[in-house]
């Protein structure tokens, strides 16, 4: 009994150390150190917090994307949904609705976008990747139809720059609403994915959908719920983006779906489903932020930045697999 106990304890400790999240975490530390030594300007918490806000919006959607990827699907329409929700809210405001009413309308739009995806994917069994490649154009297209080449802005003062509202300050460094919202959301999603029954169902849908169905999980409902959630959070993120930019345009966050996917995968979620980590995604979001801001402020040109981003992504996954290199190329 004693030996068994001892083993399981060692098991626990080594389980902690063998977690996939260590890799992005290590890379995060490394990039922090490198960036800080490359550039004096980087060593400024106030600047860091200020310039990272924009990624927190994408980071929020990376959290829902983690759930979706864990369930074996993908949602490439996230940035388009952000854009579409913000557009509807802005249109409603300019049509004479008070901003207080326009905001819920925007969130509802996000939900609606999620519902469209969810229904097509869960109830018609269409593959999520191609569905969301399609709806990505549809949602952004809606925005383009309504606002075309213009920007919609001129919102009430209280709505502008919500991200700058300081929740608390450390010296000159401002912890704004968006940053804290992201952290809180990450915590909530951590609980959802790793501590609740719903989280287990999500993982099961990703690992073996047939088995989940036979275990009396309503897998269609789970999928729909995930896309609704994704739509809703995208709606929030879209409105926050609009508040930060003071306006909305049809090309808001164009092409950033790949960024969101990268954050999730860096965080250790498996694209084939059944495995995902909110802690991992959280760290990966920070890593991407530090990488981007660190490199930009160090005047590294965007071509070299791209190259480094690619390299980091590869490293993050090669490092934990180095064992395989040593082991030789046997199995499978």
């Amino acid at each position, binding site marked *: 009994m004693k030996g068994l106990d001892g083993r399981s304890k060692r098991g626990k400790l080594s389980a902690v150390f063998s977690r996939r999240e260590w890799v992005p975490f290590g890379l995060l530390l490394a990039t922090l150190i490198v960036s800080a030594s490359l550039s004096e300007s980087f060593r400024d918490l106030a600047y860091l917090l200020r310039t990272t806000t924009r990624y927190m919006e994408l980071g929020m959607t990376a959290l829902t994307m983690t759930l979706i990827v864990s369930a074996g699907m993908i949602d490439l329409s996230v940035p388009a949904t952000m854009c579409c929700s913000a557009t509807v809210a802005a249109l409603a405001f300019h049509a004479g609705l008070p901003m207080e009413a326009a905001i819920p309308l925007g969130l509802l739009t996000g939900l609606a976008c999620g519902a469209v995806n969810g229904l*097509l994917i869960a109830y*018609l*069994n*269409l*593959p999520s*990747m*191609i*569905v969301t*490649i*399609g*709806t*990505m*154009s*549809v*949602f*952004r*297209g*809606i925005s*383009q*139809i309504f606002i*075309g*080449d213009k920007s919609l802005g001129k919102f009430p003062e209280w709505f502008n720059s919500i991200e700058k509202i300081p929740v608390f300050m450390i010296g000159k460094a401002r912890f704004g609403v968006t940053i804290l919202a992201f952290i809180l959301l990450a915590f909530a999603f951590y609980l959802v994915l790793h501590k609740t029954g719903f989280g287990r169902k999500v993982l099961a849908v990703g690992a073996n959908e047939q088995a989940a169905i036979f275990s009396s999980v309503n897998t269609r409902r789970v999928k729909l719920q995930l896309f609704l959630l994704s739509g809703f959070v995208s709606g929030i993120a879209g409105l926050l983006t609009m508040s930060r930019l003071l306006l909305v345009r049809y090309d808001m966050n164009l092409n950033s779906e*790949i960024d969101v*996917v*990268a954050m999730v*995968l860096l965080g250790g979620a*498996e*694209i*084939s489903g059944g495995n995902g980590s909110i802690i991992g995604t959280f760290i990966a979001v920070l890593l991407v932020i530090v990488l981007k801001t660190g490199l930009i402020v160090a005047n590294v*040109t*965007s*071509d*070299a*930045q*791209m*190259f*480094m*981003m*690619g*390299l*980091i*992504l*590869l490293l993050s*996954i*090669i490092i934990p*697999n180095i064992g*395989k*290199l040593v082991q030789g*190329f046997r*199995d*499978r």
Partner: protein
Amino acid sequence: MKEARRFVTQNVKEFVTLAFILLIYLVAGVLRPEVLSGGRMAGVVNSVLLWTPLNLTMALGMMMVVIMRGIDLSIGSNVALSAMVAGILFRDHGASLWQGIVVAVAVGAACGMINGFLIAYLRIPPIIVTLGTMNAYRGLTFIISQGKQVTGYELPPGTTDFVAEGVRLGGVLIPWLVVISLLLALVFYLILKYTHFGREVYAVGSNREAAYLRGINCKKTEFLVFTIVGALCGITAMMSASRFGYINPSNTGKGLEFVVISATIIGGVSVNGGKGTVVGVLLGCLLLGTVNTMIANVGIPGTVQLFTYGLIIVTALLVDRIVLSLDSKRRMAQQVAGKEALR
């Protein structure tokens, strides 16, 4: 007659796509009757024909990758990098067109090998590897080109002949680009259907564990597939130079991956691996080519194009699903009837 009917029922999926393409022509004809008039039809067809080859060539490779349950997001960047290396040779070292093609294919294949090595031998998920190399190859393209593009007059003479010249079939000119890509499609059709390698691609995608235990060298197969995709990137790179007349570090191959993945999946290749045919992919490319050119030809206003494009993709998926499920119901009923008859 009976033969024909059996042919249709056995290839429902392909015929649905074909029918959808015709539907687009029909809708276009109703919206703008003049689009389908004699003179303009040839122009439309020519546009579709010119849109297709680059995407078809890439889709052949993407199809093999997707059949193996993988994905390759790096193709656009790979195309840019191989085109740029060849372009620099053209511009600064006076390389001939054929030398350029060889170099582009070699560079493309080398990039594909890097992907293949990381994916097959280190067992890193394809999406992560290619997401990484997508950035890395594009960054490298910028770095070696120093951000400058290679413009038309710096390309060797004859580069654009592949677009302007070709085989005349009736009144329609089939540019060499199209001929080349169709030949490639034929080659891949034969490979996938009649060679061990081809069938093993399906086997590995269908059940990797089983394939390994059956003695199929999964790693080698996977590595080869990514290398082939890389070589196709090299070919596409030269096609792109020929069609657009310049090589630009940021424009060349941009967004190619999304279009090609769409074409592949619309063409019936299953994201769950193991399924897909060359004919389906060819039709998928034709469908997207038709959509893209029709949107311009019908004269849909700029601001509505994106929406229309997305809507057509989603509709195509829906129609496909509905027809296929009706078809499987029909088949089942037939089977039952057959069984009853046996009794």
